[in-house]
């Protein structure tokens, strides 16, 4: 890791740390035809830190990401990236404002090479217009060269330079996820949204992903907002954690505090142990069937409480 780091910074001065943005989510409420998916959600992310959002499926994590990247316009609330109001911006404008996003399913453009996918991340940074690029005017080709250099530097940093010429469609899942993250970095974000970066990865790949997230935060200074189900990764990488359940914020705290918060254990972390308890004391088929429903994982807990 340290070797890779020194190579990246020595050979690519272009890849200099920049100030990550602060994020202030205030009273964001999102309703879909009467159903409240986010209910007055508020939390703050300090510049340059890794902040995780955890919670059971259906807690509103994906909806929150879609609000932050301009896909959904919330019914109420405010989202400030430094001093920029993100609510009301189209998705491509949120990218210009500094929000980079990596996707849960990697979302590679399969008809393109890895390098083209990464160049796409820099689409909004190139100033040449529709025509000049096509006819390869000097300015356009200089800009293109700069873009390619920058992409190589970022690919070196992530450790995927050997994949640049591959067709995106040929990538195994784990590598597609890393290319997706690199593409999000290529947009030069001040806030990076990572949607389940380790989903479907092996233990070894998960550890690499955790190290990569920490390095992006420490060495590039980018603020990272992370949604992830793997608790090892969340606890290992995050500075702060916000717990969501049924669209409301239960708490925002340090990993240690979260680990020991009884409300969190009840809503999320303790779900499986609570279910075990239920199964031990009262092993009815209805409990196990509702426990298996991923959309309502906290039901067994609440029924037990009642």
């Amino acid at each position, binding site marked *: 890791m340290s070797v890779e780091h020194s190579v990246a910074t020595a050979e690519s001065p272009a890849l200099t740390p920049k100030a990550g943005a602060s994020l202030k989510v205030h009273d964001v409420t999102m309703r879909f035809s009467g159903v409240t998916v986010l209910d007055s959600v508020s939390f703050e992310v300090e510049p340059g830190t890794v902040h995780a959002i955890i919670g059971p499926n259906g807690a509103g994590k994906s909806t929150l990401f879609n609000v932050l990247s301009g896909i959904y316009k919330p019914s109420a609330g405010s989202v400030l990236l430094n001093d920029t109001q993100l609510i009301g911006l189209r998705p491509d404008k949120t990218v210009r404002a500094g929000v980079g996003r990596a996707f849960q399913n990697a*979302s590679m453009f399969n008809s393109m090479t890895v390098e083209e996918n990464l160049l796409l991340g820099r689409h909004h940074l190139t100033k040449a217009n529709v025509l000049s*690029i096509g006819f390869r005017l000097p300015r356009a080709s200089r800009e293109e060269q700069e873009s390619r250099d920058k992409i190589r530097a970022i690919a070196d940093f992530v450790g995927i330079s050997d994949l640049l010429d591959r067709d995106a469609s040929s990538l195994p899942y784990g590598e597609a996820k890393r290319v997706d993250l690199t593409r999000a970095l290529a*947009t030069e974000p001040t806030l990076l949204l990572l949607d389940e970066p380790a989903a479907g990865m092996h233990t070894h790949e998960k550890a690499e992903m955790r190290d990569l997230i920490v390095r992006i935060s420490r060495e590039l200074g980018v603020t990272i907002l992370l949604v992830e189900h793997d608790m090892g990764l969340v606890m290992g990488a995050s500075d702060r954690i916000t717990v969501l359940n049924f669209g409301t914020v239960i708490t925002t705290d340090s990993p240690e505090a979260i680990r020991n918060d009884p409300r969190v254990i009840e809503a999320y972390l303790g779900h499986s142990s609570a279910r075990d308890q239920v199964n031990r004391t009262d092993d009815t088929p209805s409990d196990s069937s509702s426990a298996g429903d991923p959309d309502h994982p906290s039901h067994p807990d609440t029924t037990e409480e009642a």
Partner: protein
Amino acid sequence: MELLGFTLNGLSSGAIYALVALGMVIVFKATDVLNFAHPSVLIVGTYIIAMLHTGLGWPFWASAAAGILASAVLGILIERLLIKPFSKRQEMVAAGIMTIGLSIVLDTIMQHQIGARMMSTGDPWGNSTVQVLGASMSVARLTALIVAAVLLLAFYIWLQRSDFGVGMRAAADDPETAALMGVSLNKTSMVAWALAAMLATIGGIFLVSYPSAGLDVTVTSVVFNAIPAAVIGGMDSTTGAVVGGLIVGLTQAYVLGFQSSLTFLGNNFAPAAPYLIMLIVLMIRPAGLFGTKEVSRV
């Protein structure tokens, strides 16, 4: 020799259809709209050129440039004013049906403007012909073949190599992800409509050149050949537009050329032939020869 002549004519008119069909494909890829008003846009653009030439006495190149630019503006206006309200609600099939209405409105206006006239764009090729491999060919059609080949190649390189082209392909593949990469879907959509309209008008210039007599109200039916061309190739394939255009051009040239041996089809079968091919292709490959998505499923 006869066959070679038919083939050359078929290829050259096919190249024009390919330019027009490419416009339909670009629009379909960028905005998911099956634009039935595309042939009408061609007529409007060509009419502007002919009007500037015959009415105001502009030289051909000036009126051609003005007409091509004016059609780009028309394309952008259609996209902004008529298509945008549909794309906001993701009603792209309805938008396609709206373009049928738009096409009727534009055609009616054009019929009124052109009237009984036969208008000329004042193109420099006149009615001169050249011998190509022993077969006679109009200079206008030969130029059409060359211009179309150059434009199609330039477009292909632009789409593959340029930053904007990559953005355009991404927007066609997966609009949501493309937008989250900073690609402005607004801009992509406007550029697509403008580009399509310009290609149509360039095709229009050649379509009304010799051996065609000029721009009159009957040209509409010829322009409509671009629709089977785009459908045969596959609505979302730029390669398909070129192949579809050539298939339509060649089919018509052969049916017309060998009409005397194909008497069981009657004397006016040539205009219907592309649609027959379209039916057969669609029955075997519902997405068209090179297409990936069926129009009905969009």
